[in-house]
């Protein structure tokens, strides 16, 4: 029995130690940040204080209603007066104001009868949109008045989209947080203007975009070193290039960086392309396009430039897609494209020269087409050729028809 007692007492001591250690660890876990490689280190605004404060006596007297107010200005004043950090004041006020205004905006009635159509309905819809814009403007002004100009670019909903944030961060590169916020804000404002325009930008909106662009360029140049600004410009240009012109043309990373530099040097920082997630070619002049192509020719050399032109030609892209679909060699696509280009040039030359009569031109073209047809047929093989003619190869059979 003595032995059992000794064992039991020993076990008690061991269990008591484990319990004490566990509770100590749990307390520590609650009080201190646990760092691990996956987690960002805490960045304190000031020196951290240790354990949470017992509110007891204070909360008996202090209640939230003492600082809360229907008057936003007073609410902000009270929050600041009790030492609420500026970031938290912003979080509270921005959320409150946006909620209030989005409810008001959604409730703006469409002031027309159910059975209305045409100009009457459109006028009512325009009035509604205008009222909603006015409310939006009012909320922005109010927020700026309450919190200063440093408003967050994104709504809570956007802040919640982690993937969206990651993409923009990757694209913008390692920018200081404050500058990234500015870039984000400008992109958001541009995208808002574009969305409001229903894809039809009026001169006044184009002017608004231009002003915004100029202001943000000036501001970015002020806040970034020339190397940082250059990198941002090239990155945005690269995103535009790989989405469009360079989607199918292979270049190395360093080549892309150089080409993006040429692009940005001619067209400027393509903010619109990133903001609208589309092609910003619309704003490019013929002269700018020619200049870019010349610079590209100089950079790539004639052979690779010709490859680039081919890869960006929609005719070639169609042929290439068909060849891939038929699991044929990529070389076949190039040969067919070259045949087509030669035939088109020959045809254009004959029509423009004006030496031959219409029937002579037709005969000449028919002859050229016959030889080209057999060449394409040989390249594709019987079945694929028939399919090609049906799907997109009308030019092989009817280019000479009047």
């Amino acid at each position: 029995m003595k032995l059992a007692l000794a064992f039991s007492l020993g076990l008690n001591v061991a269990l008591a130690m484990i319990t004490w250690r566990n509770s100590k660890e749990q307390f520590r876990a609650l009080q201190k940040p646990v760092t691990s490689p996956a987690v960002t280190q805490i960045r304190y605004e000031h020196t951290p204080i240790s354990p949470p404060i017992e509110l007891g006596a204070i909360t008996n007297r202090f209640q939230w209603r003492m600082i809360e107010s229907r008057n936003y200005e007073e609410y902000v004043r009270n929050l600041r007066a009790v030492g609420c950090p500026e970031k938290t004041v912003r979080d509270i006020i921005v959320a409150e104001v946006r909620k209030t205004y989005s409810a008001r905006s959604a409730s703006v009635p469409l002031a027309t009868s159910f059975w209305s159509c045409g100009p009457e309905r459109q006028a009512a819809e325009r009035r509604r949109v205008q009222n909603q814009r006015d409310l939006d403007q009012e909320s922005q002004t109010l927020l700026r008045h309450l919190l200063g100009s440093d408003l967050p670019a994104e709504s809570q909903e956007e802040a919640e989209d982690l993937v969206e944030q990651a993409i923009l961060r990757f694209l913008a590169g390692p920018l200081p947080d404050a500058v990234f916020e500015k870039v984000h804000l400008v992109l958001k404002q541009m995208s808002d203007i574009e969305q409001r325009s229903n894809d039809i930008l009026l001169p006044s909106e184009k002017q608004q975009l231009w002003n915004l662009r100029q202001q943000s360029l000036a501001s970015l140049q002020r806040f970034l070193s020339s190397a940082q600004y250059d990198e941002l410009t090239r990155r945005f240009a690269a995103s535009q290039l790989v989405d469009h012109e360079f989607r199918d043309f292979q270049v190395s990373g360093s080549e892309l960086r150089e080409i993006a530099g040429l692009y940005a040097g001619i067209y400027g920082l393509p903010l619109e392309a990133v903001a609208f997630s589309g092609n910003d070619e619309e704003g490019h002049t013929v002269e700018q396009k020619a200049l870019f192509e010349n610079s590209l020719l100089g950079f790539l050399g004639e052979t690779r430039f010709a490859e680039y032109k081919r890869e960006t030609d929609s005719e070639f892209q169609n042929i290439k897609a068909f060849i891939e679909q038929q699991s044929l060699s990529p070389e076949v696509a190039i040969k067919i494209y070259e045949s087509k280009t030669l035939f088109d040039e020959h045809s254009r030359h004959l029509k423009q020269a004006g030496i031959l009569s219409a029937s002579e031109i037709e005969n000449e073209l028919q002859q050229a087409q016959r030889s080209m047809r057999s060449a394409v047929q040989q390249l594709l093989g019987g079945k694929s050729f028939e399919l090609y003619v049906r799907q997109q190869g009308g030019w092989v059979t009817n280019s000479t028809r009047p």
Partner: protein
Amino acid sequence: MKLSALLFCSLAFNALLALLVWNSWFKTRSNTTPVNSLTNRTVRAFAPAQKAEIPAATRPREVLETFHWSQLESEDYRVYTANLRELSCPEATVRDIVIADVNEMFYRRVNDLVGSVQNRFWELMTKPKELQQLVDEKWKELKELDAERTLLLQELLGKFERTSARQESANLESRELSRQFVDFLVPEKADEYLKLEQRFAVARDAFHSRQPPISQNELQTQLKQLQEQQDHELAELLSPDELEEYRLRKSGFADLRHKLSGFQATGEELRELARIENDMDGTQPAERRERMKEFLGADRFAQFERAQSPQYQEIYQVGDRFGLSNAEIADAYEMRKVAEGSARQLRSDQHVSLQNRMAALKVIQEETTRALTDVLGPEAYNTYRSRSGQWLDELGTKP
């Protein structure tokens, strides 16, 4: 005897301690929110060296003076949230504060996640497959982060519906539209109708989201029964006139009122057109058109048909944005019709040589371009050209 009592006490104490050890181990294991997320909050407010300046507000000054935000700050989100609630901070505000705070913490973690591949930007941009692979990997990590954030928010705020601001606005707008839909009813009846509609919508949703899902046939049967039940209740709620109006408003034709660009009609006329469409349901479209033409007269019927033409709507969208009159927009549309008609005629004429045909088509193209620019103005014309001007290109190039 003493020894056995001592042994009994010791064994009881053994059991108690073992229970405590097991309990604390279980607690640690079942706490699925990573502790580092819960306790990694950035503390922002600290007790000031000097007292804050109190504004001349009408608040109890001495209480405000004794309270400082730093008193509720904590690195531990649970403590911080509890402290806010302790002050009777409204739950909506607690949510606003905590969600924004948590979002910021995760935002920093997203930065770290992206930061590790920033130096590979140029290489990745030229290797779409590798980029895609990386995007997939990061997407997984981001989803895990998102799940962790959801868990953390649930732990702090309880299970609440995280409706986005956009969703809330959409709900409000749809409520507004439903109100307009029943503006022919007296308010009390309109409320009853909306409740009925809501009740059946919930019932339909329940069928759609039933777990395990019911078969498609079963679902269709149930939905049909539900619809019959709803129709029956509606017939009891509404008078015959109201029911007719309700049916006209619910008809597909009523939706056309959103699409009749530039067509001016009174409510009575539009309702009458809807009635013709409904009453003649099952007859040939030509018969219905004839009946509508009779009702509107030839000219207005032509306008009614034009308003539904996609080609007219293309011009209308641009013209309307640029503030052009209906007459100017109609002129531009007629120009297109005339130009395309002439081109068609020319192309089908086998007596004209290819060269002459191309030359004539070029002239039509140039003249149409000039006329359109005149009537729309250069800005609107350029916008129209880039959006829907393919037909103009084809006018001069298609032999």
